[in-house]
């Protein structure tokens, strides 16, 4: 048994080396397939981060009347926090709002002058409320429209922002779903492509397989070296893919932060290192071995 295994591995390796051209072609296709699988896994995390950061920017603001007492606002804040749909509530006082505005527009004399002209502090104290889901903003808004708060609240900007909120959430949901569909299609294409390449490689060996059968080789003794070749191609492809991935992530690095703060590819790479390694190696070996197994089946039947 051990001696047969040793011979199968040796024969598979020498077949892999001797059929250099075919092996290179197989590795090339496998690298593309593994790279695709790895990228989809990697981009899943990146896109989830991007979607979450877009959704985080969505909130509704509650503007309080100028004479609303801060204690009443805090009491309301407490109550809002207790609503299960609410993810986060942030209080911005009148003074804070004025200071934020002045800081933001200090280089714009027109705006600063107009502020002086108005006199005093024209800003309202606000509560910025973030919900877990887009459809939860409606119920939060209706809670705030209760008569109990009428003398406290100037306005809730939910209805002005409703269409924008809905659009953002439907866009991110389309992005998620189409990403999944695209990933499935691409993985199927990669699998078919890999299978076809290995099938062609084995097809070119069909005469040899026939001879091996005629001189008394068992099916496993014939199949074994092809499985070894598939596994070797898979492992080498995974190593190549891993190097490419590392170089790309290091190359891009923190440049993606331009699109979204905190989007650092090196961080994503470090966090997903082991999963990525596992996915690429298992994808390589499974693709190589299973394609060989399926492709050789038909030649071992007669």
């Amino acid at each position: 048994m051990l001696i047969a295994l040793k011979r199968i591995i040796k024969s598979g390796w020498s077949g892999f080396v001797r059929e250099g051209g075919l092996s290179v072609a197989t590795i090339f296709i496998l690298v593309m397939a593994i790279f695709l699988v790895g990228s989809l896994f990697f981009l899943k995390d990146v896109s989830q981060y991007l979607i979450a950061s877009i959704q985080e920017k969505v909130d509704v603001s509650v503007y309080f009347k100028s004479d609303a007492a801060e204690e009443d606002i805090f009491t309301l804040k407490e109550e809002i926090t207790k609503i299960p749909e609410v993810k986060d509530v942030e209080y911005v006082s009148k003074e804070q709002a004025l200071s934020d505005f002045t800081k933001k527009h200090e280089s714009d004399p027109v705006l600063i002058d107009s502020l002086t002209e108005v006199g005093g502090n024209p800003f309202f104290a606000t509560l910025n409320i973030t919900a877990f889901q887009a459809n939860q903003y409606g119920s939060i808004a209706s809670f705030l429209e209760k008569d109990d708060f009428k003398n406290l609240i100037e306005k809730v900007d939910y209805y002005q922002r409703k269409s924008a909120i809905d659009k953002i959430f439907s866009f991110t949901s389309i992005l998620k779903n189409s990403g999944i569909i695209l990933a499935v299609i691409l993985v199927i294409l990669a699998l078919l492509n890999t299978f076809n390449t290995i099938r062609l490689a084995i097809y070119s060996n069909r005469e040899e397989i026939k001879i091996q059968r005629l001189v008394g080789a068992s099916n496993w003794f014939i199949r074994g070296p092809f499985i070894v070749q598939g596994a070797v191609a898979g492992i080498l492809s995974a190593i190549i893919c891993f190097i490419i991935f590392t170089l790309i992530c290091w190359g891009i690095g923190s440049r993606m932060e331009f699109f979204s703060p905190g989007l650092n590819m090196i961080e994503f790479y470090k966090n997903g290192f082991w999963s990525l390694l596992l996915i690429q190696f298992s994808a390589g070996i499974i693709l190589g071995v299973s394609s060989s197994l399926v492709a050789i089946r038909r030649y071992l039947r007669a």
Partner: protein
Amino acid sequence: MIKFQNVAKVYPPDTIALKDVNFEVKPKEFVLLSGKSGAGKTTLFKLLLAEERPTEGRIFFDDQDVSRMKLSKLHNFRRKIGVVFQDYKLLASKNVYENIAYVLEVIGASDKEIKRDVTEVLEIVGLSHRVSNFPVELSGGEKQRAAIARALIHRPEVILADEPTGNLDPYNTADIVRLLLKINELGTTILLATHDKELINSLEKRVITLDGGRIIRDEEKGRFTF
């Protein structure tokens, strides 16, 4: 040992390769199969090796029905037979040494036995200087000698040789025939298909003559006849 019982082989739609073939071969016999090209000699070997199934009749090898043997048992059965194919059927991806060693690897011989036996048989067939060459680098005669070496390396019970001297010069032919006779003397049954008149006449062995897929003559110490 080998028994053909009313065997027929028809290739669709209606090409008759063999018809009403009946004969028996005893252990340690040396049988020559003679006949023109297309007479059915190669088909007969293919059926005996279960490379193809007969359309009618049954073929027995040591009381095993070869024509109905399960696929899973074929490899063990084929290890009992050494074959010199007319078109050599050497493994193109392996060199001469590996081609011959492959048969021993298949049956699970040790590395030491393989090295000893392959070296010896390569010397016998005169290919010691070609061990590292691949089939594509060999002449017709060398390929034939490599095929002969592969057929006898594992000391099979039967050797089927399909025109084994077809590409050899008279000197090599005499050597190979001597070798086959020697192997036969040591107890291996030999079935040799040939249309070499001189070879058939010189051997004075049993000759089965085929014509159009039928056995037209089966004679002890037969001679080549049209």
